[in-house]
């Protein structure tokens, strides 16, 4: 166990006019931890994810990130170029809709290779070799490397998006409903794949999901959100097996089997 969190969030808030997006959000994320943010649509979980990943500017509060060199930086004081570099290298963002995270007009190999070039890799043979290795890790056949993602099924696109995100060995990955919209059998394969990768790579992950079974399978910790606030937060097993708050009890009792 390391002695400093990779991400420290304090009093984060974001409003849309008079409407609360999220408010009073404080937590630490540690290296290798998977945190699931659950709640119904409109509970503020996607707003929170957007603020954390600096895709959306928060109204107040701070998000401090432990950089690779050990320095601790408040994301709101970073220059735009620095943030973009962080997003391309040290972080990943897996969107619910793969088309939002992939370039649909270029090949699978280029989608993966592009992120490597962003960190300075210029050797074609090395880039292609690494891309092939990553396609294999996400169970995409090598002979599809020159196909565009348009020709892929939904599950394959999502696996390609994961490969594109992980190829630069990020330390922190944000995921927004990564299994949403997929068939159950495709979901199972993706979950199994993600579970293995998260463990093997020691990734820190913040995953937004409304699916408590996904949270159970992937996460160490759960934050339950309602109306923009965190109403319950704890070890995943504890929150799901012994929910305290009325809303959490309702969520847990509303699923067939979690």
């Amino acid at each position, binding site marked *: 166990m390391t002695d400093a969190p990779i991400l420290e969030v304090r009093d984060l808030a974001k409003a849309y006019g008079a409407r609360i997006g999220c408010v009073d959000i404080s937590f630490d994320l540690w290296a290798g931890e998977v945190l699931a943010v659950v709640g119904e649509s409109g509970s503020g979980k996607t707003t929170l994810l957007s603020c954390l990943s600096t895709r959306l500017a928060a109204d107040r509060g701070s998000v401090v990130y432990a950089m690779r060199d050990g320095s601790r930086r408040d994301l709101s004081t970073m220059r735009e170029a620095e943030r973009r570099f962080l997003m391309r290298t040290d972080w990943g963002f897996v969107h619910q809709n793969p088309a939002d995270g992939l370039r649909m007009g270029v090949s699978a190999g280029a989608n993966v290779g592009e992120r490597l070039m962003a960190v300075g890799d210029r050797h074609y043979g090395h880039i292609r070799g690494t891309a092939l290795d990553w396609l294999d890790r996400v169970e995409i056949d090598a002979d599809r490397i020159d196909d565009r993602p348009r020709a892929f099924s939904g599950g394959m696109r999502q696996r390609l998006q994961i490969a594109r995100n992980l190829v630069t060995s990020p330390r922190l990955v944000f995921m927004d409903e990564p299994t949403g919209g997929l068939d159950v059998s495709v979901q199972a394969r993706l979950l*199994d794949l993600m*579970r293995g990768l998260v*463990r093997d790579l020691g990734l820190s992950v913040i995953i937004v999901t409304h699916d408590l079974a996904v949270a159970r399978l992937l996460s160490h*910790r759960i934050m339950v959100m309602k109306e923009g606030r965190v109403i319950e937060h704890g070890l995943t097993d504890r929150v799901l*097996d012994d929910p305290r*708050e009325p809303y959490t009890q309702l969520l847990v009792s509303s699923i067939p089997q979690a």
Partner: protein
Amino acid sequence: MIPLSVRDIAKTFVMHLRGGLRLPVFSGLSFEVDRGECLVLGGPSGVGKSSILKMLYGNYGVDAGEILVAHRGGLIDLARALPREVIDIRRLSLGYVSQFLRAIPRVSAVDIVADPLIGSGIDRDEATARAEAALARLNLPRDLWTLPPATFSGGEQQRVNIARGFISDHPILLLDEPTASLDAANRAVVVDMIEEKKAAGVALIGIFHDEDVRDRVASRVVDVSRYSARGVR
């Protein structure tokens, strides 16, 4: 250092969906378990024995009291530990054989069993070899090893679960009716496995419905109904 001591635990469930109904489970619950002994939780069915194991493993929170676990050379109160501390305790110090296997889609029986070893840093090949040996010992047919256990029978799933729970070298092991759906031959295997854990200095806490198994493995029996907040029914 005592591997596990429970002091003055109290637990009440509050059912908000049923008008805030309060269901007290225990109060003043205290016991400890030493190295090499198997403490059996006794008392009538429905008194909350499985709930105790879930509290000890951190799945249920407690309202008061301490659960002191020997971990990384010190004592840590699991009732107040942070999630990442609980996970570290589970990884290194505290194992649990639940009543039912929680099958993971697409993951084979042998990988489910090997998983805790890999999590504790053991190399994949060695972990797989040990998992196969454990499944063989529990007489799980070899052609099932590479299949996900979701379609297995209750007894087959339970043997996968037992293999997974016993494979690690956790110094404390919680057992929730591990022999419930097993035939006599496999029950005997589990009894042997428990005896081996005791001989290795592991502290065990278990619930056993089967009297024969209980009599053979128990070092002591604690009747938990005297701590029950509901009284004996």
